[in-house]
């Protein structure tokens, strides 16, 4: 296996050299990318002997020779169909990791800076902000996947919400996989900086135009400053053959709030690492999620909620529905650092196993170094309640429909908190459709 990983690294190395020679960026970024590549060469893809990767084996990904995608020239893509009506005047489209000005609509974003991340790093008006937060929370020194993404950072989205600006229109960023060829790799990157007392709603939408094998390795860094609020939805609907790994890192300022919901539906193998650092007093976060997996899908969520300062609250609810041979992994860490008194942290992970071959490995984890805190976590794995099924049957609902209803109800707890109607409607449809195909 060692040789296989080495082979892939060489593959990425070659692509890295080619990109570097053909399209150099600004010197600052060249340095960052160079050192990230060096780090990736040392770290490689995480292996299962790493505790964080105990239940997810990336060997099939590591041995595949994915080719890093290049900037698409003059693409004609129907990106419209991935746009939620609410975001008609504020959607940004990223194709294979490259920001597309032509496909994006920014008419509803006049008070917001929404540009190619590469221009932000180069432009004197934005480079101070961009450079101070880029590769800061999603560091590449200890994480091979983050290192690989950073090494191939050639574009992406920079979203800057200035002080006191309240953005009414939800902002959508669609990450589109549109490989001209199979086995391509994309490295989408997103940097969001919400300045003091601003507020916004962000939707990340990972979709594809085809059903081939490809690799998406995404990184999103989110900075929420004092008093700012961000509502964040993350939809992962990659193709059924895709490998999807992604990192979301958020840092929260004083009295700020971050409300995020991650919906994981697609991908043959998907992994999401979400970390929220509460490093100023009074910050609050909601980190929720839903994962649905069937057939041979493998889905993995690792979350870290890091309470570094007193008086911060965190709430977490993750639910999973597994069918077929699907396998889900959930690992939720809550840290309460020394001195982070009056922390209130709550975490729940519930899993529904619908088939005999489905499997769940869950590990909710608490590490607490302060005494005046309230922390609780719970995890459950089970099947539908027979009594509830009976109740429905007694009222003339046939068992299939009853099962479907209960499963839907299980997912609904996460879905119903989504405030954007079209997402909720689409999700309802997806859940019901998935249930129906499972029932057939």
């Amino acid at each position: 296996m060692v040789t296989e990983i080495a082979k892939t690294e060489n593959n990425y190395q070659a692509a890295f050299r080619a990109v570097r020679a053909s399209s150099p960026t600004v010197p600052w970024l060249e340095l960052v990318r160079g050192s990230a590549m060096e780090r990736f060469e040392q770290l490689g893809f995480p292996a299962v002997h790493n505790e964080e990767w105990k239940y997810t084996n990336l060997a099939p990904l590591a041995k595949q020779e994915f080719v890093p995608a290049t900037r698409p020239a003059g693409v004609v893509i129907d990106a419209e169909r991935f746009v939620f009506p609410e975001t008609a005047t504020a959607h940004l489209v990223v194709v294979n990791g490259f920001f597309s000005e032509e496909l994006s609509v920014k008419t509803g974003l006049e008070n917001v800076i929404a540009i190619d991340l590469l221009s932000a790093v180069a432009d004197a008006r934005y480079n101070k902000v961009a450079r101070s937060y880029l590769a800061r929370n999603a560091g590449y020194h200890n994480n091979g996947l983050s290192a690989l993404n950073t090494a191939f950072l050639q574009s992406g989205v920079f979203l800057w919400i200035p002080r006191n600006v309240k953005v009414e229109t939800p902002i959508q960023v669609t990450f589109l996989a549109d490989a001209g060829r199979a086995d391509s790799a994309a490295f989408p990157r997103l940097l969001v900086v919400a300045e003091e007392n601003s507020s916004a709603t962000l939707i990340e939408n990972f979709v594809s135009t085809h059903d081939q094998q490809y690799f998406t390795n995404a990184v999103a860094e989110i900075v929420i400053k004092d008093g700012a609020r961000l509502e964040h939805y993350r939809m992962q609907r990659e193709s059924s053959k895709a490998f999807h790994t992604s990192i979301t890192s958020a840092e929260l300022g004083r009295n700020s709030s971050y409300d995020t919901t991650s919906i994981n539906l697609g991908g043959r193998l998907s992994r999401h690492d979400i970390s929220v650092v509460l490093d100023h007093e009074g910050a609050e976060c909601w980190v929720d999620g839903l994962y649905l997996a069937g057939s041979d899908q493998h889905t993995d969520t690792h979350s870290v909620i890091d309470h570094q300062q007193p008086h911060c609250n965190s709430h977490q609810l993750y639910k999973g529905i597994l069918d077929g041979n699907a396998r889900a992994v959930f690992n939720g860490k809550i840290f309460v650092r020394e001195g982070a008194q009056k922390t209130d942290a709550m975490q729940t992970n519930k899993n529904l196993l619908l088939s005999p071959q489905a499997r769940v490995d869950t590990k909710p984890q608490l590490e607490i170094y302060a005494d005046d805190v309230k922390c609780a976590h719970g995890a459950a794995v089970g099947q539908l309640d027979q009594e509830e099924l009976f109740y429905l049957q007694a009222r003339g609902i046939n068992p299939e429909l009853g099962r479907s209803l209960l499963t839907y109800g299980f997912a609904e707890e996460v879905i119903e908190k989504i405030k954007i109607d079209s997402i909720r409607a689409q999700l309802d449809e997806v859940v019901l459709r998935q249930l129906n195909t499972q029932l057939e």
Partner: protein
Amino acid sequence: MSTAELLSTQEYKYGFVTDIESDMIPRGLTEDTIRLIVEKKNEPEWMLEFRLKAFRHWLTMTEPKHWPNITYPDIDYQNIIYYSAPKQKATKASLDEVDPELLRTFEKLGIPLTEQKQLAGVAVDAVFDSVSVATTYKEKLKKHGVIFCSFTEAIRDYPELVKKYLGSVVPTNDNFFAALNSAVFSDGSFCFIPKGVRCPMELSTYFRINNSESGQFERTLIVAEEGSYVSYLEGCTAPKFDRNQLHAAVVELVALDDAQIKYSTVQNWYAGDEQGVGGIYNFVTKRGKCAGKNSKISWTQVETGSAITWKYPSCILQGDNSIGEFYSVALTNHAQQADTGTKMIHLGKNTRSTIISKGIAAGRSNNSYRGLVKVMPKAEGARNYTQCDSMLIGSSCGANTFPYIEVMNHSSSVEHEASTSKISEEQLFYLQQRGISQEDAVSLIINGFCKDVFLQLPMEFAVEATRLLGLKLEGSVG
């Protein structure tokens, strides 16, 4: 009371040293050491093979220093005395021949061994450093067919039973400390409950480390045949020395069809002083196998001592409908570290397990619960319920929970809950308002917090455990 601050604790009252001449072997560990132990104990050839196999495997293993949430300086395994026995007459026909100094020692520890004073209803095997010095009520137990004796005697008198079960639950190559124990274990208790017998009294082993240079490596094996029942208690203390000592024990339990084993521990090894100097490294492997249908193994532990506790009493639920239970109170104060929990491996159909863990951390200590619930594909209808609660006293300690849940069967149901809290100021105020001193109020609240576990302990142990918690925490809230 706003923040907790640490004052002095009650003296560790078992910290005295018994002045007795010991028969020791030189420091260090080689194959020759093992041959010497075998020779001293006059063991048969198959034991030598068992030990050497374990030793050779141990040499290839590495110490598990990275994954547990504990830190300690490297242990020099060549600087430990692997066998130390109080000098006394070779065979003891009765307790009258046991060195009176030893009897006095155990009496001082609250374990009288002389016939007229023996604890009613409890048979005791007293282990002093590397050997068992006395076992009470042997004859009475024999009438019921129950075998309860030191491991040395068991190897001599019941070799077939020992051969059949030794290493059947914890194989010699299981882990670093179990391999070390398998290579050098000196004594321990053996207990066999034949088919259909309900053991008429509680069995217990009392472990005492006396020698400052030696480690203690004992082995306990309990076999409960079809339909039998036994309740077993384990207690331990050690003198205060300012150097760390290693205690690496292995406990194996086997329950056949319809058998029940209840295993209770009150662990009060010397924990080191307030600065964390000295104390026992308690690296123990305990595992029970519910081999038969409808069998049940229940672990109850009250862990208050040791500088470091590293133990995970586990149940392999192999027989259909078998039950595993784990009830634990782990208390750490000063510089103590505990990484403890359980593993419940569900193999059989309709197997059930319950885990109740209460962790209390005070001072600068670190208290971790680490557990695994694994439901294998064939374990249809398996159920688990886990509850881990932690309480922190003071702002410099840590409480961690690391539960691993692996479910490979969809008809099973696993629930895990954990919470962390502090002693409520309102509760304290309420009690103090009614004239109860702060210390007593804290003790009451802690005992309430641990009630679910204490209820599982046999009467005498529950009283002892309650008292012990009070002692250990004395002065830590103020």
